[in-house]
């Protein structure tokens, strides 16, 4: 780990100004991913701005009947919040399917969204990785790729996003609220937060330097059946091979996102139009253009079957 300076932000303007004044800075919240990456010198921030002291840890109703989740709400608290369990059960289920109790106690809402891939080559600084060193090459392509993405991949990167929480939020149609150092507030659809790897896999999202996520908002409750099904080799404490977050309404329409298959939670409204036709039709549309490796081609069938399982769970 390289030496770094550290300050504790006492207000939102303080936090974003500190970031603007320190181009090599990172915000630190729960630290469950960033600290690991710093120890491995994959992340080398010269300055850390601790945002734990900001009053961003509340869950409040929005004017349009939805929910605003403060960026610093811990995963454990979010999963347990009564209004989340009642109205957004898919989110609660997804959170509880992720990580471990200890990690969820530390991990925050915004930190969870911005966690980085768990690709083993990304984590081994001896190996070429375009995310770590642009232009170095991708070791996962042609290497150990069972866990990697199958859609939205490029010749430069096939890493998948590891979050469960984000998959449920995407299915719910969540939006992300941010603050820039110039005081500007913007709202980003979660669908637009993540950048496709393309030729620049080291750029993972559209946030500006120093832009701070302050909250995630959920639209008003959809009702329906909420299902989160996470498929993995062991029963707990493993990243998804494939996961499905689904909200299925009584008329068999609904909203649905996949985890474990792309650089971001994978959802398409076009695919959802096929929901009344069943899983096969949905999956065909959702994963059109998939470009898997020999090791992870099974994810296509697995995704279709897991969607089917989610739909049958909803109807039973």
């Amino acid at each position, binding site marked *: *780990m*390289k*030496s770094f300076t550290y300050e504790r932000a006492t207000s939102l303007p303080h936090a974003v100004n500190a970031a603007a004044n320190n181009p090599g800075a990172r915000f630190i919240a729960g630290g469950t991913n960033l600290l690991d990456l710093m*120890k*491995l*010198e994959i992340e080398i921030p010269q300055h850390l701005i601790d945002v734990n002291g900001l009053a961003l840890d509340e869950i409040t109703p929005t004017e349009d009947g939805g929910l605003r989740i403060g960026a610093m709400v811990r995963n454990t608290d979010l999963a347990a919040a009564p209004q989340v369990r009642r109205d957004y059960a898919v989110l609660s289920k997804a959170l509880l399917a992720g990580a471990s109790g200890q990690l969820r106690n530390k991990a925050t809402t915004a930190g969870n969204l911005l966690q980085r891939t*768990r690709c*083993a*080559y990304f*984590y*081994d600084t*001896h*190996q070429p990785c375009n995310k770590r060193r642009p232009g170095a090459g991708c*070791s996962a392509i*042609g*290497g*150990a790729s*069972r866990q990697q993405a199958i859609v939205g991949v490029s010749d430069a990167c096939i890493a998948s996003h590891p979050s469960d929480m984000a998959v449920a939020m995407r299915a719910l149609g969540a939006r992300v609220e941010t603050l820039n150092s110039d005081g500007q507030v913007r709202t980003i659809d979660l669908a637009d937060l993540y950048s496709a790897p393309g030729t620049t896999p080291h750029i993972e999202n559209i946030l500006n330097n120093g832009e701070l996520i302050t909250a995630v908002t959920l639209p008003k409750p959809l009702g329906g059946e909420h299902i989160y099904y996470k*498929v*993995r*080799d*062991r*029963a*707990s*404490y*493993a*990243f998804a*091979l494939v996961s499905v977050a689904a909200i299925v309404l009584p008329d068999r329409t609904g909203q649905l996102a996949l985890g474990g298959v792309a650089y971001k939670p994978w959802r398409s409204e076009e695919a959802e139009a096929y929901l009344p036709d069943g899983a096969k039709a949905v999956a065909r549309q959702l994963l059109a253009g998939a470009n898997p490796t020999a090791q992870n081609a*099974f994810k296509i*069938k*697995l995704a279709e*079957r*897991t969607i*089917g*399982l989610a739909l*049958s769970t909803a109807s039973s």
Partner: protein
Amino acid sequence: MKFDTPASTNPIDQMKVIGQPKDRVEGKLKTTGTATYAYEQQAAVSPTAYGYVVGSAIGKGRISSIDSSEARQASGVITIVTYENAGQLDRGEFYVDRALAGPKIDHYHQAVAIVVAHTFEQARAASALLRVYYVREPGAYDLAAQRASATTPAPGAFGPPPHTATGDFEGAFKQAAVTLDGHYTTPDHAHAMMEPHATIAQWQGNKLTLWTSIQQMNWGVRDLAKTLGISKDNIHLISPYIGGGFGGKGTILCDAVLASLAARAAGRPVKVALPRPLMFNNLTHRPATIQRIRLGANPDGTLTAVGHESWSGNLRGGRTEAATASTRTLYAGANRMTRLYLAELDLAEGSAMRAPGEAPGMMALEIAMDEMAEKLAMDPVKFRVINDTQVDPEQPDRRFSQRQLVECLNTGADHFGWARRSTQPAKELHDGWWIGLGMASAIRGAPTTKSAARVRLDRKGMVTVETDMTDIGTGSYTIIAQTAAEMMGVDMDKVNVYLGDSRFPESSGSGGQWGAASSTAGVYAACVKLREAVATTLGLDPTKTEFIDGHVREGSNNLPLAQATIDGDLQAEDVMEFGDLAKQYAQQTFGAHFVEVGVNAATGEIRIRRQLAVCAAGRILNPKTARSQIIGGMTMGAGAALMEEMIVDHRLGYFVNHDLAGYEVPVHADIPHQEVIFLDEVDAYATPLKAKGVGELGISGAAAAIANAVYNATGIRVRDYPITLDKLIDHLPAVG
């Protein structure tokens, strides 16, 4: 004392303390975090410097140059040791890997340097500034690709001969009415113990003290002396607590050697722990195997031909994974053959891991037996029962000292409800899950090796045992205290046990499932001597004296034990040596595994529902710690069956998933229900305690039982471990 005739009645048979489910004597220390593991021995040495090990960035090649100028200037750095300044280094006698690379690189993450600084963070930061330049050379990383180049290995110190043959296997196989010819693979496995390899090294003149974490103190002294070229007398190893070893801490490895070099170069004590991501490629592992099993039987199920071949790879000079070990003695069959082949690979060293040989061998053999039973349209339990043998199939005049395999199988079948198993696969669908039952036999050798101990009785009547035996989480402290308490006729709270110090009498150490049986035999021998000393001191006849309830009795005499020490402590030391009873009688432990699994009909996810092991392994010294050993083995078997695999990158030449996030081992949710039944057994041919080890029996066969249950659930036969859902999903039976 020499054990060369079967044990007769002795004080152990009272079983007042032995055989009781006593709590671990050091349990409280471990559950309260106060047991001092190697890295935590600060109090023993201070001030300490910290060493950070730098691993090679390439799989095979050589170091062309090292630029340490920037690293040496870094904050807090005291010294840096590389091959350029380490001096001449040899290797130990057990591992072939070199603790320090250079200029040749033998495998990925082989240590190229240790950076020593005042703090851990300084050492780690400086290590990133060390510039090591490499020249890559093509390496051999793929066992399947190297299989054709494999040769017959030289016979090793452990494990079966490379080739065995009895009768005419090829002829019998050709003529058999029912045959099976199957190929199976097992991947590389990591020990993945909780405590990483860690050492604090301190030099005082030419005397070297190591607080370290190893299973065999005597091997450690031997191998460190040879590696460093110093006298064994100048080495003192201390390993009171070990956070798991599973064979991966057999003797000294990179941490011990580099800590010693670093402490010498730094002129002060140095502590080193291997970072988890380095452990998988730097240290040893269970090597992958490719196995071919051929079975031939008569229509009535009698095996007539048993053939087992196995290929594994290793660094040059490394050992062979002896996957054929159990096939030699598990089942009858007049015509048999086993063959081992070894290829050279440029991956980390393959070596002992819990039930080396038996574990991967049984993973294959016990699937083959399930397949064969199906071909014969015979129940798999019955098929095994009718092929039981009470004599060594390779030497029919050699009986087993004890063999209750059939009793294990039948007891397990009854207890588990085996009769309810559908003989047709893919018939039991419940709530979206295919349910299946599977079983496998278990066999694991019961070796013993010489073991010494010292026992002292003090004026307060306290008995103190000292031996360099280790407790790697197995319960050695407890069973040794039980042994001494039983022998001296006192309660366990009157016994102190000190282990893990190379200055204590040389024991068997922990490994190969020999530790419990051997080390308690050594303590028994020392206690016999101490009893004689007590009796003589009290003027009693040693041959007629009984030790009961803290008293010594002979006829009408009944004296307090402590009376013997009025004039001073009494001490006795002895070593138990084992004669050739193990040659005259085949000595093995036996068991039977039964498993129920569910396989998700949509996704192919496999979840174990319950596991049962029935074991017959001589006298069980402590049913509680023995059960923990068996369920630990069953859990490791579950990992081997369903998830554990060190993934080899055949281009870059290393194990890719080299941390505990990438290398998955079972978590609690994977293991919902386990049961263990020990059959009543004493084995007078094994040790004076009539006991055998159980540390490796639980894993042997455990994975295959799961594989067979998956087959029973789905009708899908997976012969390449681990059995993951991607191997099922294209073949899952249609629902409804």
